[in-house]
Structure formats: C-alpha cells, structure tokens
C-alpha cells in the first residue's frame, strides 16, 4: 500500500528510518542535513514506535553511540555532513573492525575544512576507500533522488545486517534539501527483544546461563589473529563485490560516448544527454549506485563498446580513478568537475564532452 508524499530528501531519510523499524538515531546538527534529526524530534517516534532519538554532544559521541547501539543488535543510524563525518572516522573503523551493522548518512558539502554548506561530491574517496584507519570498506549507496534517499535506508539496514558491516548513504546537500514526491512503504514493526536475541547471537544482550559471554572488540594483540580478522573482512568485501553491485544505464544501447556520474551529477548528466542528442551526439549515462562495490565489470564492458567516457563529478576527480582502473580499452577517459558547492550545468558538460573527448 504505502503512501505518496512531497518531502525533502533529508526528511525522507528520517521518515524511511521510522518505517523501516529503526531502533535508534544518534546525531549532531550540521548543515545541510539537520532536517534529519529535526524531523525525527518533531515526529516523536519514541512515543509511536519506541525508536530512540538522541542529540549527542558531538559527532565523535554520536558515532560512538552508534557503535555501542550497533553492539546491542538493534537497528541504528546516524547522519551528518562532511566535517562531522571526518570526526567519525575512528568510530567507523571500529564498526568495521568489530563487524557491526550500522547506517551512516553523509549529506556532503564542499570542503576542505569548514568549506561551504553547498552541495559537493568531494567525500567520494573518504567514503569508498576507507576514510578511517585500517583495511576496511563500507557498502556505499549514492542516491540520485529523494525516492532513493528513502529507499536506500531500508536497503542499507538490510545490507548492514546481512554482512555485519557499516553502510553509508553518500548523498549531497542538494538532494538532501530538494523536495520531490516520494513513495513511502508501509511501516514494519521494530523487532522484539526475542527476535534480536535469536537473530544476533553475537550481540550484547546480557549473558544468559546458556551461552558464553559475548565480547565485541576489534583488538587482537596476536598478529596472526589480527591477520585472520583482516582475511575475514577481505573475504566479506569480495562477497559484497560479487552480490551487491547496483548501477543504472540510461540510453546506453546506441551510445558512442558515455557519461559516468553518481548522485546529483548523474541527474544533471541526464539533461546533458538530451542536449547532446539534440546536437546529434549519441551519448548515454552509466550511473554507479553502489560506489563500493564499484560496478567494475559493467563499466569495463561498456568501455569496450564506446569511443570515450566522460566522468562528471562535483569534485576534482575521485571516482574517475575507479573508472580508469576498471576500463581496459584504449579510449579517452576524461573528467569534468566543479567544486566548492558549484553545480555543473548541462551545457558546460556537453561543451566539455565536445572539446575534451569528441574533439580528441
């Protein structure tokens, strides 16, 4: 059944979390994502579903609340924007090292430093390549619409528990702030204590006489043991790469050239496709939806069919490295980016395509 509503991206995330049976949200205000917690506080899910909503004293605290909350086996999330996500990196690394499920939303703004509150995609590397210390990955979803902001909350929770891993929704200030219609699915009830205890035998639920005490830690002072943990993590990441890749191809069937872009940039590229096709240039869009796992195979195959790829990002060229690593054909792969909160226009994109790629 569900329900159709007009909502901001940030609000859609909050509402989707309540409906997905989320048990706890811990956050700290930062533009352009504060509406997530504002919406939750206004909705008072702690009275309706029993979901805990808590404003922490910092992002360091909120990520460590998330870490403690994830240890209980409950469904927990946080959200922030770039500077706040930087503060969370130690905690994210602990979540990965202890193999705990949790959802982290990054509504990216321009940086470095305090930067700007305008949208950006400059946290791609931080999200996809680890960000914190040690060898780890998160599963990273890049929504391109308010609908996907809502959808990827439940998708993210599911993947987090399936693989016992932190999951990130990497969006940006524009998608967080813009209003679109969004279909919200019916609420699912929060899991009962009995369900959590049976589904999460590893969790800190209190030790009954029937089992050993559960210990959640990433510490192993024995190098052989620590290497074993790392091998387990790497095997998990390979499984994620096999099973969880998501992407979208738009007008790629007859395309001679391809835009590759995620999130907001992909939305803009769709308009650029229209403009280019009016000019007689057959161009399509390849949109990675999961940034880790990156759709390597799919872009490699496309690369064998087209004459050139243009990677459009609101950063100085981050995802392009993954595109270049994936594509094995000898075609031009160029980048176009705007930074600091400036959003590229479709005209600019088509111009660059003509000059940098087709002109080559």
């Amino acid at each position, binding site marked *: 059944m569900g329900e159709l509503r007009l909502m901001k991206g940030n609000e859609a995330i909050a509402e989707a979390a309540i409906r997905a049976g989320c*048990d*706890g949200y*811990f956050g700290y205000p930062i533009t352009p994502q504060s509406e997530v917690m504002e919406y939750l506080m206004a909705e008072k899910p702690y009275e309706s579903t029993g979901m*805990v909503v*808590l404003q*922490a*004293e*910092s992002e*360091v*605290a*909120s990520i*460590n*609340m*998330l*870490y*403690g*909350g994830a*240890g*209980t086996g*409950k469904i*927990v999330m946080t959200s922030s924007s770039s500077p706040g996500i930087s503060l969370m990196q*130690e*905690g994210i690394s*602990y979540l990965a090292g*202890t193999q705990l499920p949790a959802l982290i939303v990054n509504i990216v703004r321009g940086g470095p430093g305090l930067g700007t509150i305008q949208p950006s995609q400059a946290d791609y590397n931080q999200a996809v390549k680890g960000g914190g210390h040690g060898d780890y990955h998160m599963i990273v979803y890049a929504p391109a619409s308010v609908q996907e902001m809502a959808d990827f909350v439940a998708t993210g929770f599911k993947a987090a528990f399936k693989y016992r891993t932190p999951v990130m929704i990497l969006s940006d200030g524009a998608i967080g702030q813009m209003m679109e219609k969004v279909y919200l699915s019916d609420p699912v009830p929060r899991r009962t204590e009995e369900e959590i205890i049976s589904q999460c035998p590893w969790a*800190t*639920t*209190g*030790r*009954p*006489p029937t089992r050993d*005490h*559960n*210990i*959640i*830690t*990433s*510490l192993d002072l024995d190098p052989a043991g620590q290497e074993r943990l790392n091998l387990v993590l790497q095997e998990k990441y390979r499984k994620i790469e096999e099973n969880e890749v998501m992407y979208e191809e738009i007008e790629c069937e007859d395309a001679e050239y391809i835009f590759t872009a995620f999130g907001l940039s992909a939305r803009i590229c769709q308009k650029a496709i229209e403009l280019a096709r009016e000019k007689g240039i057959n161009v399509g869009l390849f949109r990675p939806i999961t940034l880790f796992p990156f759709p390597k195979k799919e872009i490699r195959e496309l690369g064998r069919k087209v004459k050139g790829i243009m990677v459009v990002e609101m950063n100085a060229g981050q995802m392009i490295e993954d595109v270049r690593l994936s594509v094995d054909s000898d075609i031009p792969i160029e980048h176009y980016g705007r930074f600091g909160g400036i959003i590229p226009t479709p005209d600019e994109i088509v111009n660059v395509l003509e000059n940098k790629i087709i002109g080559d």
Partner: protein
Amino acid sequence: MEEKFARPEIRKPENIVYKRTDLLVDRPLSYCPGCGHGVVHRLLMEVIEEKDIVSKTIGISPVGCSVLAYDFLDVDMQGAAHGRAPALATAITRLWPDRYVFTYQGDGDLAAIGTAETIHACNRGENFTIIFINNGIYGMTGGQMAPTTLPGMRSSTSPYGRDVDIMGHPLKITELVANLPGTYYVTRQSVQTPGAVRKTKKALRKAFDNQDLNKGVSLVEVVSNCNSGWKMTPVQSNIWMEENMFPYYPLGDIKVEGTLVEK
C-alpha cells in the same frame, strides 16, 4: 585446582567461607602484580553475582591497561575506543533500558580524551555506572603524564616532575561531575587495605542498586596505584599513594542520592 589442596576431605561446599566469584574468568590477569585493577575487577563481579544480574549486565571496557577487561569479566562486554565508553553506554542504556550498564575507565580515558563524553553523559543523567580507576598516570602506554598526575610528579612526559605552569593542573573531574544535576551518586574510594576494599565494594553495590532507581549516573572513582608506571614496588606505591594522592584526591562520598555531601 584440586591437587593444590592436600586435604580434599575438608574442601566441601559447607566448609567454604570465601571463594573467587565464578564471574571472574579463571585465567591469569594481564595486570602487573600489586596493581589495583585486579581487585576492582573482583569486587565488580562480586556485586554482579550478589545482585544476580548477569543476564542483564553489559559492560564497556576502555583503552588503557584494562583494555582486556572483557577477557576477565564473564558478562557481555564491548570494547570502546579510547575515551568513548560513556557514549557507548548511553546508547546501550537507552536501547536496553532494563539492563545494568557499566563503563570501566582509566584517568586518561575518562578525564583527558573522553572528557566531553564523560561530562555530557553525566549531565544528561544517563542511567549507568562509571567505574573510574585514577592512578594518576597513563599505565598502558608506558607511564606518560595523565590529566590527574600530581604537581611535581614524575612521568615519562614530565621527567622533571609536573610543572603546573607549563603543563597545567591536575583535573579533579570527579568533583566536577558531582556538581552536575545528572549525577546521583559520586564517591571516591581505594583498594589498598582490606577496609578500603570493603568500602569500595559497598560503593559499587550502591552504584548498581541506584540503577534500579533510574536517577542518573553513579560514578565510583577508585584512587589506585600504578606501581610499574610510578616505578615503585607495590608496597612503596601504596604508601606513596596514601601520602601524596589521598591529600589531593580525598576519599569518601562526594554526592549521595543526588545531594552534595557537606564537608
């Protein structure tokens, strides 16, 4: 175990007047001989056992010498990042409101890197117990200066003694949090004599009993020795602690049932 006792015929349940609590895992502690950490571990587990709340208890270990506390305490445990135990405990008590939650933290963990988490958890009045081992030094990393290191006290990063003009003053964080409305019980104890051990156990029991009332944080500070970090024998370290630490960190209750104790 058995073979150590020459006369198994007297080892009958009815003859046992004292034994190690079963909640203390039977393995060698990682602490230096003479260190106070182990005594506090035992008292903590005795309280959990006597209250019969194992199946409802969740502990948070810190980063510090007691980082491996989860190997010794036979309750569900999660290891925090350095200083963040109160943030974990906050989430756990809120998500499992009927559980008994405790953090076990050193002075570097609680009063330096984790100061913000400590103060805000105390100020929010979270319903958990903080066990705070104040040994005036960073034991684990090799005896560096802690926020609680005494004026003039030597450490590996204050090799000529703590110069308060350069290095600042020792932080009495326990008195500080006692003044916050969210703390319900704040006390400072020690474990260097049998009498002190008994008092600390009573304090721990009170802290866990308080969790039944849901009135806010109970914080039990234990002023403890670090014979290795202080470069003394265990006996010397206890004498030094009594002569130097106790005057700066006076023992006794600081706040009881939400009210500051008049001194």
